[in-house]
């Protein structure tokens, strides 16, 4: 075994000098949230870095809805889940169909549609929110879950189509030609050749759309307002309405709300990194 040279030690020290601040910077808001979640109210408000009496009681209050702000917690959790899954499924369906049509069937005008979609992708979502709010009102969908689902599909599908089109452009044309020679209809081509080959990208895009919808705050807060049909992030924002908000409960609910997307992200990281960053920015 070879002893490290002075230069190597110096290098390692320099890296640590970057790594430690990066770690602290990343963890502070998350640790602070966790700290509140396990602190009784007195400890949370005393500014300690570790509570004197760590407890899981806050979780108990949230799960049993034992506070005014939390009386609809489970309904809101359910709303978030349904909306995220519906938006994910619908985006996946619309985007896969469109990408297949543009990339494999070379539908006339496909390139044009692709450019329109890309254009939408670049319009900041907060700018579209204002007219979207009014439009949903005109359609009579305000306070209906469909308004949020459709808004999320609108926002997620341009990127979804774009990534899926990039991925399907890479599949060899010979596959389609061989399948057509064997007498496959277009639908069979789609179902038996295209979908299985696109699976990794489909997982990535489905995850992307589900997380986008689960995390959305602005549209949810504009489009839904009844306590029993809002999603969790809106409920979290509503905690701020009172001056003496129970912040330890707010952080506990926030922690619970943050866990599923983090878990999904890490579970599908393999697909996410390959599927999304490749498409995200091409130089």
């Amino acid at each position, binding site marked *: 075994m070879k002893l490290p040279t002075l230069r190597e030690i110096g290098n390692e020290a320099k890296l640590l000098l970057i*790594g430690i601040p990066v770690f602290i910077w*990343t963890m502070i*808001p*998350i640790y*602070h*949230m966790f700290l509140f979640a396990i602190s009784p109210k007195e400890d949370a408000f005393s*500014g300690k870095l570790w509570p004197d009496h760590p407890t899981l009681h806050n979780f108990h209050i949230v799960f049993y809805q034992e506070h005014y702000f939390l009386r609809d917690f489970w309904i809101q959790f359910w709303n978030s889940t349904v909306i995220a899954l519906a938006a994910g499924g619908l985006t996946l*369906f619309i985007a896969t*169909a*469109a990408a297949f*049509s*543009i990339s494999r*069937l070379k*539908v*006339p005008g*496909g390139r044009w*549609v*692709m*450019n329109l979609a890309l*254009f939408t992708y*670049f*319009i*900041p979502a*907060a*700018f*579209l*929110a*204002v*007219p979207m709010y*009014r*439009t949903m009102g005109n*359609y009579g969908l305000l306070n209906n879950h469909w308004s949020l689902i*459709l808004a999320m*599909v*609108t926002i997620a599908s341009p990127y979804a189509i774009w990534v899926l089109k990039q991925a399907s452009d890479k599949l060899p044309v*010979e596959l389609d*030609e061989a399948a*057509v020679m064997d007498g496959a*209809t*277009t639908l069979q081509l*789609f179902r038996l050749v295209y979908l299985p080959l696109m699976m990794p990208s489909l997982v990535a895009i489905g995850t992307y759309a589900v997380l986008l919808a689960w*995390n959305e*705050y*602005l549209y949810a807060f*504009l489009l839904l307002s009844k306590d029993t049909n809002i999603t969790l992030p809106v409920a*979290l924002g509503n*905690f701020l309405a009172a001056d003496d908000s129970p*912040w330890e409960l707010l*952080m506990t*609910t*926030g922690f619970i709300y*943050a866990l599923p*997307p*983090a878990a999904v*992200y*890490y579970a599908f990281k393999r697909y996410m*990194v390959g599927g999304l*960053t*490749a498409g995200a920015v091409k*130089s």
Partner: protein
Amino acid sequence: MAITLSGDQAIPAPPLSSRLTPAQVWGIVLLAPYLLVFLAFVVYPVCYGLWLARAPANYVALYNDPIFARAAVNTLIFLVIGINIKMLIALFLSGFFAQQRTWIKWLSVIFILPWAVPSIPTILSVRFMLNPEWGVINHLIFSFTGDDGPNWLNDPTVALTMAIGVHIWKSLPFWTLILITGRLAIPHDLFEAAEVDGASWWQKFRFITWPSMQTLYVTCTLLSMIWTLGDFNSVYLLTGGGPADLTHVLSTLGIRYLRLDQLSLAMASIVVAMPLVLPLVYFMMKRLSR
């Protein structure tokens, strides 16, 4: 293979007047769902919004509203200063994370957390840390110095800086990740050759890393600027636009007008941003649809 087949298999491009092939019919059918969504939730709202904002009086009202002027300035500060700082840090960190070390690999897994968790709870967490009476930061300041800490979010400059900080915290991992992929694509023998020639750290960056990454870097910066225009959460949930509506950016200002039932003003404030947004969008589309 394709060439040998193409003799009688290839379908000659039909003149536009002729009947569509079954594949093309399916193509249109499969494209229809997206087109419907696009028409109903993009084209219609945008046209309707433009129609609402048509009266010149809106723009006069906007021009006379000091909150709008302030929001425009804040937006520019957010974009020009905030995004460039973020991208420089991302560029720097991409070099750090490209190092082959086990502990750096683990750190990169943790580093991605801000991007993986939803922004609402973490922004609210920061908001409470900055609370002048109960927040952990002022508690620490008090226990070290015996003085009361500042009322962080009550000063518009500090509050906007904090909002930019929250934005950086949230989206830094994403851009670092993108720049890492760019860095890893640089052929390694270039660096080895430079090493042999005794190039300094700066020379390696200046003559190898930067030339191969500058297109990606500029693309990322522009894209991040466009998206940051839509960053509603960082400002709204941290400062709520306050104190005294001095920390609004264009995205929160539009929603503020909307909540005050001044829909045409809300649309006008967005239309005003278009001369800034559309060239950026056009440029990005040129780049990405190549």
